[in-house]
């Protein structure tokens, strides 16, 4: 009797407590998601009071015929793959380096994470300054001091070098996320496993492959999947650094707010969403995306 009464009161209370969160998410996440699909079939003016014309699949066929879309998609995949591999590898390497007792460990750990917690807007100015064509420290060191480049590269004037800067920036900014995740799991590995491997005469690489890698595998998969998703729809960092690297996030933003073509922008969102959805479905089978191990 008592448990039934308790159950009944639970659902009522639960709904009341969850109401603000559910309402907000429904109104400003779920509804916009669906609304995206609807807008993608319309020629939507930027002024919400003007009527929108139904255009069927025109926005989609425009995108499929747009060479800029494929260029952007290719660039986005390259950007995502390079930054995910880079930030994960650097994060793992530094986590392995930190996985021992030493003085100032906590301070060093906090300092290493600094690029991750600092707002992009602050970091971007420093990078633009460092890579400035005429008075940046990178060109000064590369050309005048170490003579690596014959002619000082015009970093942000050229799509290839801009892309390079944007990738290095992302690896530098986001490796601490992988670092923190790996360091936490590395500390849980039983030290006796390494001792046993030492007795068997295992090399450093063998120890990594047989002991470390299997232990960190679940975290590795989670880190890679989440970082992949986040990098795939990156906008801010790249947009603030350069106008020469049109990844999908920027292609979408410009279609919407520079060319005022909201319908086409919505269809780009839908395509992006479908790609990410496939990634998540594939990843879900192997990866514990709940972050808890």
């Amino acid at each position: 009797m008592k448990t039934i009464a308790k159950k009944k009161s639970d659902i009522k209370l639960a709904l009341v407590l969850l109401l603000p969160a559910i309402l907000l998410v429904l109104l400003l996440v779920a509804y916009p998601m669906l609304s995206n699909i609807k807008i993608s079939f319309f020629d939507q003016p930027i002024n919400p009071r003007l009527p929108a014309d139904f255009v069927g699949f025109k926005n989609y066929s425009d995108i499929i015929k747009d060479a800029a879309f494929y260029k952007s998609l290719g660039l986005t995949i390259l950007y995502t793959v390079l930054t995910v591999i880079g930030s994960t590898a650097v994060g793992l390497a530094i986590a392995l380096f930190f996985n021992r007792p030493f003085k100032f460990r906590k301070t060093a750990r906090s300092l290493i994470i600094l690029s991750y917690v600092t707002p992009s807007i602050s970091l971007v100015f420093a990078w633009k300054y460092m890579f400035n064509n005429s008075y940046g420290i990178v060109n000064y060191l590369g050309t005048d001091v170490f003579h690596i480049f014959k002619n000082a590269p015009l970093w942000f004037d050229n799509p290839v070098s801009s892309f390079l800067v944007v990738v290095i920036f992302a690896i530098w900014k986001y490796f601490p996320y992988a670092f923190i995740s790996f360091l936490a799991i590395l500390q849980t590995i039983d030290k006796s496993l390494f001792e046993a491997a030492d007795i068997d005469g295992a090399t450093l690489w063998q120890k990594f492959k047989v002991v470390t890698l299997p232990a960190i595998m679940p975290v590795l998969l989670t880190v890679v999947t989440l970082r992949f998703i986040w990098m795939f729809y990156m906008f801010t960092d790249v947009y603030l650094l350069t106008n020469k690297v049109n990844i999908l996030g920027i292609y979408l933003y410009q279609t919407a707010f520079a060319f005022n073509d909201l319908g086409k922008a919505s269809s780009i969102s839908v395509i992006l969403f479908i790609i990410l959805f496939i990634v998540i479905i594939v990843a879900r089978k192997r990866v514990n995306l709940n972050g808890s191990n």
Partner: protein
Amino acid sequence: MAVTSKKNKLLKKTGFYIGLVLLLGVMLFPFFIMLMTSLKSSKEAISTSPTLLPKVWTFQHYIDIFNPTIFPYINYFKNSLIVALIAASISVAFGILGAYALSKLKFKGRVTINASFYTVYMFSGILLVVPLFKIISGLGLYDTRLALIITMIVQTLPTAIFMLKSYFDTIPEDLEEAAMIDGLSRLKIIFYIIIPLSISGIVSVFVYAFMIAWNDYLFASIFLSSSENFTLPIGLNTLFSTPDYVWGRMMAASLVTALPVVGMYALSERFIKGNLTEGGVKG
């Protein structure tokens, strides 16, 4: 034999510390450049043979950014503070209620709700820009701080619930049962038992939400159009696009902009066990 192994150990240790210093040097180099440029004169900052340290040290740029006749920094700072504080507070408040329901109450649909919040944690951002713009301007909220506050609450709430739930899950149920026998209502239990016991988690979630709102550029750039409503990221970027930016001033502004979030992070790192950097937070 013993001597050589001792020597080896010392060598290894020295090597490690040299490696550590080099590593930190490389990773922190942009911060060093920022700080030094903010302390150089404007002329020195654009010298083609740059020096690491300023030849003449000056605090002028820091004085300038707080002078409203030169630089609207204080106004941007105030806007950012309002948006981030309100958004983070509401996100934490709604988050506590929602997380409590998902953690401690048993009801149908709990798993589904939990999973859908988690999906939101992975998405959003640029994917929702067009419809959100349409909704916000349809509601007449275009170019208001309120638009940004609401968006930031929604952006952070799913993660807030997700993080808080994992804190609440660690609170033993016996405690609550005992309180119920004493006649405490559920709401009182939240206030007198759950919140005090997970205060460190709540602070971490607040810091996380504050950071997301403080750092946001995307939504500020589509919702705000008049300079008096600008938050720091969009305000600074707009100033940078004008021809009369001064490097030292931009660097000083960048550092002061980073200060609140880095400070909060450092404090939570120091005083809170199991803080946000251990859970793996979106970013």
